């Protein structure tokens, strides 16, 4: 049994310590807002926060997550995510939506660190998140809009 802090709650899970966090979230914990895209940290669909930092849960073993605060799309809170969700809605960013949990978690971590990001900051923070629907121009615009104080 491994103890985890997920979305502010202490939970214990049965999964073996080597299990990637993604599959613990999606399987045992049924938190399916976090998505599987590539399994190799190439696409960002599985992005969650570990102590506020964006990580790829598909390559993060449960043993590494243990003892840290894990936040998923279902539990993320604060002025940054509120502003991002508002901007995402106003600009109509989403299309299929499959990658958007990961996009939002990456964008949220960016705004927490850099409240007024430049285009170059957005490139760096968001380049690891693939979207096959091509929502990138709207994601960029929405991050800028959410960053307006």
């Amino acid at each position, binding site marked *: 049994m491994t103890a985890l802090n997920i979305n502010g709650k202490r939970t214990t899970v049965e*999964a*073996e310590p080597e*299990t*990637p966090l993604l*599959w*613990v979230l*999606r*399987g*045992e914990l*049924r*938190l*399916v*807002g*976090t*998505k*599987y*895209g*590539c*399994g*190799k940290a*190439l*696409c960002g*669909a599985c992005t969650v926060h570990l102590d506020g930092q964006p990580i790829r849960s598909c390559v993060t073993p449960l043993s590494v997550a243990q003892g840290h605060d894990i936040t*998923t*799309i*279902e539990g993320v809170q604060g002025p940054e995510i509120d502003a991002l*969700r508002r901007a*995402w*809605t*106003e600009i*109509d960013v*989403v*299309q*299929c*939506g*499959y*990658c*958007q*949990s990961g996009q*939002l978690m990456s964008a949220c971590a960016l705004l927490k660190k850099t409240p007024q990001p430049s285009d170059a900051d*957005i*490139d760096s923070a*968001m*380049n*690891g*998140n*693939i*979207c*096959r*629907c*091509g*929502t*990138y*121009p*709207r*994601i*960029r615009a929405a991050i800028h809009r959410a960053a307006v104080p």
Partner: protein
Amino acid sequence: MPNLKRRHLVLGTIGAVGALVVGWSALPARQRLIPSGPLPIAPGQAALNGWVKVSVDNTVTLVMSQSEMGQGVHTALAMLLADEMEADLVQVRLEQSGDDPIYNNLTAVVDSLPFQPEDHGVVKRATRHMVGKLLREIPGLNGTGGSSSVNDQWLALRKAGASARLLLIAAAADTWSVPAAECSAEAGRVLHASGRSASFGELALRAAQLTLPTDVALKDPSRFKLIGRPVRRIDNAAKLNGTATFGIDALPPDLLYASVTMCPTLGGKVARFDAAAALKLSGVRKVVSFDPVGAGLAGVGSTSGGVAVIADTPYHAIRAIEKVTVEWDHGPAAAVSSRDVAAGLAQALDSQPGKAHFETGDLAAALKSAARTIDAEYRVPMLAHATMEPMNCTVQFKDGAATLWAATQAPGSARAAVAKALGIKAEKVTLIVPYLGGGFGRRYFTDFLEQAAVVARLADGAPVQLLWSREQDMTHDFYRPIVVSRHRAGLDSQGRLVAWQSTGAGPSMGLPGLLQAALLIGAYDTGYAFPNARIAYHVSESPLPAGIWRSVAHSQNAFFTESFIDEVAAAAAQDPVAFRTTLLTGDPRMTHVLLRAAELSGWGQPLAPAPDGARKARGIGLHRAFGSVVAQVAEVSIGEARQIRVHRVICVLDCGFPVNPNLIRQQVEGGLIYGLSAALHGEITVDKGQVQQTNFHDYAPVRMRECPAIQTDIIASSEHPQGVGEVGTPPIAPAVANAVFALTGQRLRSLPLTLA
């Protein structure tokens, strides 16, 4: 204008034979308001017609046949219903439709018959009428594809909304004993001049007792409240908080998970396997094998057979599948490489004239008398769809019936294919279509659904979620095929185009004989008035699986045609935009889009250099597809590593009446970026029958840093709405290639675009 004529008239013959069934054919096609059987009803709910139910809790349920894969169709179709019904969009809920023929999407089929858009002749009209009428009788043709959903349901849903509104008004008039003419509907309520009002929910049960009016007047566009406005998507909230349910998110109780390994050689199968090591691992229930599954109607070839591990958790399945040893029967593709296929196609074109599907004038004479001729060979590689959500399906097979959670573009085919795989009747398959994490044509195929059903049948009644890894998904697709195309143009001494010839070579995609003309969409229906022309295709099959990919043959034919037009313009020493306008003499719509794009992009004016000082140039691509016309002007520079950089793209689109400009812009942007990934990076190669790319490191889509700014202009139009979901994809590759030529003088004739 001279119009490319179909050389053979077999399609017309189909129409003519059909026309012999005189009495039946003279009648209009079957109505779409009332299904052949009653809709399922929840307590407190009333069905007002085949598309809309109203509940006493005041929700309006739209019966939805179309799959939401990002294109915004749920929002657009809900707008059509709500506007005519005078419902509030927030009270509209969606419910998966069944396979009744009223939901058949016939626009996708009828519009893909190979006729010229300019053709208004009797053969075309009779054929379209007969094909549409015949297919209206067959249940389950309810696919989402061909950029056709709004086009197809534009009238059906508006009539459904209008007739429901009239029923609710009649119910209110009955209740209040007033003339219906004194009542009106607004925002989900019926109002009377006296000030009385009732919600749709209060009137629903009474309305359902009344006779449905079938001859209803639709709104004049000036009275639209939602249609034509940039209404926000109805799926935003769920897709921003993790609650939106995709195929992969099905969570029935006691769910088991399956992971698969398929024969790496395309179409191969399992000879034998050893599961002993896998079965020793914790959480593993069963290890089973499955056979290859064919492409069905959307392509050719089959998905490989393989082995599945059924386990208690996703990770237990993933971990165990690696421990299964399999001996493969590689099959006929084992000797095939993509390089050989491309070389074979080019070689075939040395001796094969191809089958001429469209011809006009006297090409031979025109080429002979031309002052000069220009020849070029173009190529495109295989492409994977690479949806963000890998292929998956959840199936529960219990007591002779199946429940299927399937992110599919083709619900009718899905139900039928799974029923067949399980040996049960289609009525025994309950299908739930969640959101699709991308489709792009891949989810028109049912291979992964049949595979999941065959595996779940062995799970003793438990539901099984079968998920392909990204690697399995990338290496077991129905790929956009390799096509080689040869082009020849003749110019007279004044630089006017007098001859145009193109001959493509590639697989038939399963299309018989004359229907192979569909492989030339985007080549024969360009809108250019070629005075003497021959448009041909040579079929050369290969064992490589191939299928429909966003914008289908437009994706390659736009690259060929729009690049070669640019080559010819350069040979004639003419401006690319001006040269195109001389060929568009009969098509004011295309001319308008082209000139608008030129104007908005500042065509012909100097361009500021890139931030690093590199010179920029513009290139243009113009294309007509799915009833819409789109032009794109790309601003391009070359980076230090000789990489092609696209800074900005101006898009102009005429898609008929713009139902939701916001969704349309999204689709144009998205389609363009999808096409740009293919233009700059996309290439699937095959060696010894095995796909060599496995994940996003070697099949690289455009990412944020590389993505251009996109500005989209939508032409005002009152015409019937046309396709939007795929039209942004075809023109971007030639627009970028043409810009590269303007910048460097290098003509890039194969994708992905790579500078020498």
